[in-house]
């Protein structure tokens, strides 16, 4: 494998001296067809990368907003196959599409089969929040075979040893969780985020692996703040909230597009 759409996109953002904007939405929220339209609005507004969430019944890293969105998707009958359909539609927008999934649905689908199917759908990689590199042998083999990036997470609690081990196992980027908590909007970006990125860069100096920050970023100003030190800014709950708050889909799409524009301006306002 030489490259992926994800790597190309992140490299282009770095070349342009800005951070990439990574937007998250659960596939099937509020239903499969509508989730594709929301993602299209996110891309129109300026998202470079879309994290397509595989809605899961036991989302241990997610706060109430994304839990509600995932519940809606599951209630609408969203399945793993639907996630691939949403990935196909996402890739068709020109944005890089990665899946964010807890491990159990992937294991249940079949690790090799999941990787092959995702690659065929045009997906560039998978973010696996509850898989640690030491237990990822099957995933490393399957993602290598399918040409997919694998994104693991680091957190403020990660030791130097774990930062090195995790980033060595990552391709595409490493997901830096800004704080010891769950997804959701917050009034301030945690001050642990910048320290974590700096510590992570100390172990990725040789590889140049991009470091993208997620958790608690929900305004253009916060995106600009994080863009000053990170390669990518990950936003999820803010998009879900706008869809949840809208009286109908069309209104929601306008709010989502405008929110993406605000964030896209933020990631271009580096220092």
């Amino acid at each position: 494998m030489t490259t992926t759409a994800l790597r190309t996109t992140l490299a282009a953002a770095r070349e342009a001296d800005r951070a990439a904007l990574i937007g998250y939405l659960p596939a099937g929220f509020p239903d499969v067809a509508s989730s594709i339209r929301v993602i299209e609005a996110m891309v129109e507004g300026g998202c470079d990368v879309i994290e397509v969430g595989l809605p899961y019944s036991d989302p241990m890293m997610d706060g109430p907003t994304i839990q509600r969105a995932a519940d809606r998707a599951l209630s609408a009958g969203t399945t793993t196959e639907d996630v691939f359909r949403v990935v196909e539609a996402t890739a068709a927008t020109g944005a890089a599409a990665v899946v964010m999934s807890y491990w159990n649905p992937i294991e249940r689908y079949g690790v090799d089969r999941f990787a092959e199917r995702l690659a065929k759908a045009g997906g560039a990689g998978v973010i696996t929040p509850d898989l640690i590199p030491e237990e990822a042998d099957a995933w490393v083999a399957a993602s290598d075979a399918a040409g997919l990036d694998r994104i693991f997470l680091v957190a403020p609690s990660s030791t130097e040893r774990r930062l090195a081990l995790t980033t060595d196992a990552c391709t595409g980027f490493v997901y830096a969780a800004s704080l010891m908590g769950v997804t959701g909007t917050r009034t301030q970006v945690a001050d642990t985020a910048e320290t974590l990125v700096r510590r992570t860069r100390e172990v990725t100096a040789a590889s140049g692996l991009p470091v993208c920050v997620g958790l608690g970023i929900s305004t253009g100003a916060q995106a600009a703040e994080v863009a000053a030190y990170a390669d990518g800014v990950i936003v999820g709950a803010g998009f879900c909230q706008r869809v949840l708050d809208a009286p109908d889909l069309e209104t929601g799409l306008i709010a989502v597009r405008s929110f993406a524009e605000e964030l896209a301006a933020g990631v271009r306002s580096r220092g």
Partner: protein
Amino acid sequence: MLQDEFGQTLPSHSISAGLDYPAVGPEHAHLADTGRAAYEPITDAEAMEAFRLLCRTEGIIPAIESAHALAGARKLGERLGPDAVILVNLSGRGDKDVDTAATYFGLVDPEGQR
């Protein structure tokens, strides 16, 4: 884990909140796989009968989770006979469970008037 064909967790039921979870921890799975522990199911009714028994005979209110162990001990005792010595780990106390127990035993009316 209790799961559907897509790996989504399925709803579980137990009268004990602490056991009302669709999966099992890795330590228990390991103990079972290596033959160091045996696991037997207990129904809500068996657990609550054991709960009542310990309250009545010892004046100790067991946690409903622990009442499952007591119910298991009763079953084991029936198999092993009166000379057996059985040690039960009463892992929690049941004062947190009195509302659940009162409802189960019909000691409150459904409108909440005690």
